């Protein structure tokens, strides 16, 4: 017997989705407005606020910083996270039981507490340069995704295949790159995407670590909002939504979007 979903419930869900998507459509509308203030529905259509983004040098430079930080932080995190995930999947008995919990810590400790602590100890205390401090913060922030997502792939990998390669004379490092890694490719891609989007959207860590001359796009956006409340903010927001679309397209293309509900 298949009971049908109650129509009232369906209507409720419909309203929820209007609630979820409506505000984003409003932003797109305000970004296209020809006025100097934020208004919806837009009055007159123009792309001048999109041009304005690129005329403000702070937006140009922070865009580059954000991108470099997301790629660099994710790469660093994968570089140390993948071997750790491999070790924990392959040598579960040899390593202490608490080790996987270590890699949950960056999620467990509130992001803003981590940002403040890094500012206090690393940036101010040790005098690390701003970009290095940001890189450490972002790599820490995304490490749990790298270790856990790649780890989940590795857990379903049959290590006897690797053993076969090794016993046939393949060096360990080579068997890792030619046998193990191609089999957990989806996990590595997923980890990269999740880490990239987390890093590029981060506010709570970056807000403490950005300083004179170096800032990230979300932080610059916050700073801009405090002074000007004009459609440039909406235009940057649309640009950031474009990043989301690009990321979702990559997910669909490489893994299929169903991956996101698993």
């Amino acid at each position, binding site marked *: 017997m298949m009971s049908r979903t109650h129509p009232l419930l369906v209507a409720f869900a419909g309203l929820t989705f209007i609630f979820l998507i409506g505000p984003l459509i409003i932003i797109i509308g305000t970004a296209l407005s020809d006025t100097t203030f934020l208004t919806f529905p837009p009055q007159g259509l123009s792309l001048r606020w999109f041009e304005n983004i690129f005329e403000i040098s702070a937006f140009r430079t922070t865009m580059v910083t954000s991108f470099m930080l997301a790629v660099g932080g994710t790469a660093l995190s994968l570089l140390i996270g993948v071997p750790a995930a491999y070790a924990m999947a392959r040598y579960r008995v040899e390593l202490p039981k608490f080790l996987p919990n270590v890699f949950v810590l960056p999620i467990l400790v509130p992001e803003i507490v981590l940002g403040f602590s890094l500012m206090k100890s690393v940036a101010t205390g040790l005098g690390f340069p701003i970009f290095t401090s940001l890189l450490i913060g972002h790599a820490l922030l995304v490490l749990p995704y790298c270790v856990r997502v790649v780890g989940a792939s590795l857990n379903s990998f049959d290590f006897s295949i690797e053993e076969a390669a090794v016993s046939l004379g393949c060096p360990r490092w080579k068997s890792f790159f030619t046998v193990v890694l191609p089999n957990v490719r989806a996990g590595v891609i997923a980890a990269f995407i999740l880490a990239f989007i987390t890093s590029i959207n981060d506010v709570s860590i970056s807000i403490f670590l950005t300083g004179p001359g170096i800032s990230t796009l979300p932080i610059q956006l916050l700073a801009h909002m405090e002074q000007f409340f004009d459609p440039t903010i*909406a235009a940057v927001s649309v640009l950031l939504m474009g990043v989301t679309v690009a990321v979702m397209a990559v997910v669909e293309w490489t893994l299929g979007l169903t991956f996101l509900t698993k």
Partner: protein
Amino acid sequence: MPVPAPPTGRRGKNKRLRDRMNPRLFAWVLAIPATLFVALGLGLPVLSTFATTIGEAAGPLQPYIAFFTSGFRRTVLWRTMEVSLITTAISVVVGFATAWVVARAPGRIKSLLIIAAVFPLLTSVVVRSFAWMVILGKNGIVNTALLGLGFIGEPLSMLYTEGAVIVAMVYLFVPLMILTLVGVLEGIPRDLTDAATSLGATPAAAFRQVVLPMAVPGLIVGAVLVFTGSFTSYATPQLLGGERQMMMGTFLYQRAMVTFDWVGASTIAAVMTIVTLATVLVMSRLARKLNPVTG
């Protein structure tokens, strides 16, 4: 899958190499960079923050006594608790009802709905909070509409109120709840409810006695994510609450970067961490206990 052909003549050398490196050592060599990175990059700085709060000359617990005896700081803590709890409650109800519909929707519609939930989730928190500033602002859509319809004589000030923060937070977390619960609800076999109803249970009873107990662990996981996320948020209370609706996150930032009171900021950080950890520990234990499979 590419399995390389065995290189001849090198077998002996490889065997020696493997014998030299014992598995435990090899495993540690691989795991140590990431472990050290967390220990030094997160462990030490966070512990140093905690140490700041107990290393005071006036007494080890002085900053905490100061925190809890100050009316203003208590107000901030309670406001944060209140906003987080209300956000969680609304997100659980809205998320569950919506996830129920999504989980039962036919294939194509379902993937469309999932895309509609994922999209806001992947979009910057700043963007999503900004949207509500546009909607709730003095010249915002709500005010324009109400003025136009003649319901109000002058614009309402809705920004910088607790309600504005809650609306934006619910907006932030409902997608997370939906996606968490769609996965959970899809994992409950339809046969179970069918069996219950064919044995005479009303749909309501089948829901209460079969679906709900199986969904509870997922509901708890989602609720913990929403609560801790709201409790430690920064951008949303900053943009929609401002100075008037100071919350723990914005308060921490203000203490650290505006008044440079590092002991005060560290104390706020410690309180935030303790509340977060306690919530996660207690609730995950509860989830395990209430899980019909493991409990």
